[in-house]
């Protein structure tokens, strides 16, 4: 068995997603049968050994995260899949859910078994209506075929799975805000500790994982740890979906070995920049990551390496900034989004981001002042990691602080002459 694209192997442009039968015929739904022969702790161990990093942005070892759940006590516990893909420039989970919903469901069943969840939820971005339709159909099929419900595949394991479509807030991507939203409360994040593994949904142990993370589980439990480790480049395990948007010849996302460089994605997969445009900078993995420069293109898309260069891999879907687009206008757009999406719970995010937006608007209107640049520098530190209740504002501060690092001349030019990209 030498599948090299376990996430997208069933996906074909223009074709409807596999039905249950087609999916099973293509080798699907084997992971649960394998997992149920093992103890839940052993399944966790396999996932941990496989070196699967979380694909939501933080990159934390998934098996390790699972292992923090307390031992089952006979009361309910939950798996929640975070399908609220709202990071600007990110559309990988959408591909997986629209085109191979059974892969996610299989992953959820196996993951739920590992953590002994009694109920699983998909928290889906409200705008993803095609994904909703396809998932609902796939969930019904899974129930009909005994993959969900009581005594799954003749085992003693029971699981119910529900799809919840979000009312739509960026903050719902934060796992504790997502839990509040799922409970019908305001989508404000919760303070940690306690972590959701201890007290999450309905006050019970809960694991929240990203769609792509869970979609890796069937492969690991079907083909084994060694196979998964072999998929990555060098020391890396597995594949991931990376991609690019912006003025490139062929924007999109593709499954590729973990460890692939940004240059490969930009030049080989996306065909390079459009004619007449040059790469000025790029956000490596969504709107809430620091700008990297063309000299960083040869970095492998690995969290640690990207961190060393002063950014975050994030969702690994690059957004390119070309030489004909105003970097300050770009940051302004991002900050406007984040300021609007702030939940309003903690001060630096709620009141800091609108101030930044106000200054960037002034810059774009040619009304900026030199003292504003000082305030922007201060604000990017003020909203930094550890200063806020959750990661929203520190993420929002990343494009701001890195633009101040790389494009100070442009800021000064804006103050002196206004925006000359218009």
């Amino acid at each position, binding site marked *: 068995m030498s599948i090299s694209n376990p996430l997208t192997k069933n996906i074909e442009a223009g074709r409807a997603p596999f039905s249950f039968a087609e999916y099973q015929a293509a080798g699907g739904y084997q992971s649960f049968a394998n997992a149920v022969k093992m103890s839940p702790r052993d399944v966790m161990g396999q996932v941990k050994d496989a070196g699967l990093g979380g694909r939501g942005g933080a990159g934390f070892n998934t098996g390790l995260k699972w292992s923090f759940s307390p031992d089952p006590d006979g009361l309910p516990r939950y798996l929640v899949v975070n399908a609220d893909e709202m990071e600007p420039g990110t559309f990988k989970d959408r591909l997986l859910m629209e085109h191979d919903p059974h892969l996610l469901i299989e992953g959820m069943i196996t993951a739920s078994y590992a953590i002994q969840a009694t109920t699983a939820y998909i928290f889906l971005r409200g705008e993803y209506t095609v994904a909703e339709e396809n998932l609902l159909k796939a969930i019904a099929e899974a129930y009909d075929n005994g993959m969900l419900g009581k005594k799954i595949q003749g085992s003693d394991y029971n699981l119910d799975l529900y799809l919840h479509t979000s009312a739509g*807030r960026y903050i719902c991507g934060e796992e504790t805000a997502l839990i509040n939203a799922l409970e019908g409360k*305001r989508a404000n994040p*919760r*303070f940690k*500790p*306690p972590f959701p593994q*201890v*007290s999450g949904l*309905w*006050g019970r142990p809960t694991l929240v994982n990203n769609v792509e993370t869970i979609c890796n589980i069937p492969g690991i439990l079907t083909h084994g740890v060694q196979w998964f480790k072999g998929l990555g480049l060098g020391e890396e395990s597995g594949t991931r979906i990376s991609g690019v948007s912006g003025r490139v010849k062929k924007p999109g996302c593709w499954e590729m070995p973990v460890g692939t460089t940004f240059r490969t994605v930009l030049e080989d997969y996306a065909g390079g920049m459009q004619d007449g445009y040059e790469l000025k900078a790029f956000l490596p993995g969504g709107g809430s990551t620091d700008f990297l420069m063309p000299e960083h293109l040869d970095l492998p898309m690995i969290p640690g390496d990207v961190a060393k260069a002063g950014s975050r891999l994030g969702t690994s879907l690059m957004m390119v900034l070309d030489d004909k687009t105003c970097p300050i206008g770009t940051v302004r757009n991002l900050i406007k989004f984040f*300021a*609007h*999406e*702030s*939940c*309003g*719970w*903690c*001060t*630096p995010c*709620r*009141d*800091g*981001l*609108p*101030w930044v937006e*106000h200054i960037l608007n002034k810059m774009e209107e040619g009304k900026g002042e030199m*003292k504003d640049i000082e*305030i922007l520098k*201060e604000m990017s530190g*003020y909203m930094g990691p*550890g*200063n*806020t*209740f959750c990661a929203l504002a520190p993420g929002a501060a990343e494009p701001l602080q890195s633009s101040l690092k790389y494009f100070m001349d442009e800021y000064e030019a804006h103050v002196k002459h206004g925006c000359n990209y218009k």
Partner: protein
Amino acid sequence: MASITIDGKVFEVDEKNNLLQECLSQAMDLPYFCWHPSMGSVGSCRQCAVVEYADENDERGRLVMACMTEPRDGARYSIEAAANFRAQAIESIMINHPHDCPVCEEGGECHLQDMTVMSGHTYRRYDGKKKTHTNQYLGPFINHEMNRCITCYRCVRYYKDYAGGTDFGPQASHDNTYFGRWQEGPLESEFSGNLVEVCPTGVFTDKPFSKHYSRKWDLQSSPSVCTGCSVGCNTNPGERYGTLRRIVNRYNDEVNGYFICDKGRFGAGYVNSEERIPVSMTRAAHDSDPVQIDPDAAKEALNKAASDAIGIGSPRASMEANYALRELVGAENFYAGIPEQELGMLNKIIDIYQNKPVNVANIKDIENSDAVLILGEDITNTASRIALGVRQSVKNLGRQMGADLNFPIWHDAAIRQLAMDKLSPLYILSPHNTRLDDIAKTVHISTAAHSAQIGMAVAHAIDSKAPAAEGLNKEEEALASEIAETLKSAKKALIISGTNSLEPALLDAASNIATALANDEEKANLVLVGSESNSMGLALMMQGSDKALQQAMAADAKSAVVLENDLYRRAASSDVDAFINSLEQLTVLDHLKNRTGEQANLVLAAATFAESSGTFVNYESRAQHYYSTFKSKPDIRSSALWLSDKHLNELTAACAADIEHCADMTHLTPGEDYNFAGLKAPRQHHRYSGRTSMRANISVHEPKQEQDEDGVMVYSMEGVPAIKDASVLNSPWAPGWNSNQSIFKFQEYAGGPLKQSSQGERLLVNSSTEKSWNTPAKNTSSVSGQGYQVFPLYHIFGSEELSSYTPSIQEKATSAYIALNPADAEKLGLQGSDGVQVEHNGAVPFILRSSVQAGTVGVSVGLKGLNFQDIGASIVLDKAENWQFPDTWHEANIFASDKFVGGAD
């Protein structure tokens, strides 16, 4: 205890508290907004940031919120190192805050002002437009000015999470977050007024106060006690130019903590009422026009009238005033001035408190109870602050769940999220649904007499030596044993009942249950409430005698002196009419015009609590001293001064010496020798303005300072503020802390008891371990063949006599009505717009509630249009002829505490 280092200094701290609380306890100035000692921490405002260092080598440290940090033994923190971050936080908080401090009611006692100064934000850099919001009408009590909001979430955490309100919350998000109702309208919670104090700035302000506003520093204030019910919440009234301007909470961790009810906060407007009796008057006959007389002549007339008079005391007059009347007329001629049945019930409470193995619960005990049984007393309406305490008690299950997972007790959000809707058990036995039904495990609707039987069964199930119950069905027996099991397995059970149910057997049942629960280590908590601010004190004064109003009226006296008492609220109108007509001389001392006073031959203008000092005894038998806030006008004197030539202190001492159990009444104030560096405690703030000029339009000569009656506080700004003894604190203030948050400077630790010489004294001390049982008298009030069995319906707004003279309370009240079961209404042929003719009474509107048992009828107490005393245990009802709704009928006002939550049809 943990040993921690803060900016190089070592402190011993309690690791159960959060770091912010400990910093405040150590007298450090660390700013904060969202934390509140009663509501715990959520970490949203980011204003209490400090730096925590990992170990001795860590030089950078990491920013943490002190309110969300458990002090670790050996840990090192710095407040100084986070100063820049805190300055940034306040700067961004302030970008949308209006610069309207000069016209804002909060100005001068604004926590936001204090924190802004403390955090070092003085210069505005933000040059954009400010965010603006629309304000809402929130009823007669509270102004809403959303532009001032700094989004600290304290309001909603108080209103929803703490007080259980459901009609107010956060809306929208980001910097557009809005705190309000889904649409304009009066706030439904009976505790909404606390928003005024919980809000760190001027979003929620006291509306009646706004209408005659004065800065905090210009208010003359004193420690006082609420006159609204028998709980005796501690208050700080504020006066300017001879009128009472407002009431705020006065912290007392054993009585009311940080919160009072809306009747307490807004109900004292009667002090300024146009219905006040401004001067003393005489009347030749009961129905002639009054003639004004000067105070000295009035006093002489009183002494003459009293020479062979009976005295009728009052449950809303001070111990001293009642005692002075008792001395004036002679103990043998002194009567309680309340119905026989109520006096009997109060005497029963005194016996229980003294002789049964029970723990009389204060507010802390109530909040710490983990299983509660309420027997027939509608506490939201009759002893409101206790209902708020019960709301906290049901959260103890969640706190225990959190403790099992090592959550710190202050981690409010985590505990709520863990507990979800799991509550400690609360059982309610009541003739109607109540406001606490939403947190009750079981609400059982039955008549008071029947509820008492269920209570007896509970006691019997706990201890078979307790007398058994009669007449219960299977379901009720099962309920009784469930309640018994629950109470037995609780760490601290609480039984609540009171006199307002008008059913003595409920007190017997409550006593038996608490007695049954007692064991060698623990006594169960018991709360038995009375109806008025000094009901218990009056009963103590009677020393077990049964001389109630009925006995007074039957005493065949020719002259009667009535102390602060409208007899028509205590006995049937026809009986009172006959009594007054039989008198040659009726003398009345009171503050407000009422039916009794209107017939008096001699009316003495009596001071209210705000213009006089004295002692009230609350439901716990806690004697509390209230200091007069301002000097009354010359024509008005305190009842005690009218009735006696003794000084107040001498009266207190005489009462303490003379009346059994009252000896500790002399310990309530630091005594007339009190001084600090040779000076008394001031009633006025050291910034009180205009002292030498406020009368300049009348005379440029500064009048002599008014003298005080008890020698502890002065009507002046001269003196030393109560730094060491908060029992004489006019209002809390500390350098840098102008708002009410400054109270922590007077506490033993932030959120703890006050450093003060007296928190009041429990007069009844109980060391009984002996179990003895009460057997209720045979119920004589059960339904006879005809008529409907009556149960009383109390209203926080309108049922209490004095507060109902206050305009904002009137806006929240309605006139009298009855509540009927729909089947009974159908039998009577009643349609929605009909009125009900009440036997021997007028016609009133009715409301339908399926929760009202068929054959019973709820009758409003104290509301205008129906005298409850004119109604017997059962009444005959008819459809009213020529019916029209009275103008005073506001069904919408039966929406708050009066709403039958579960039973609305």
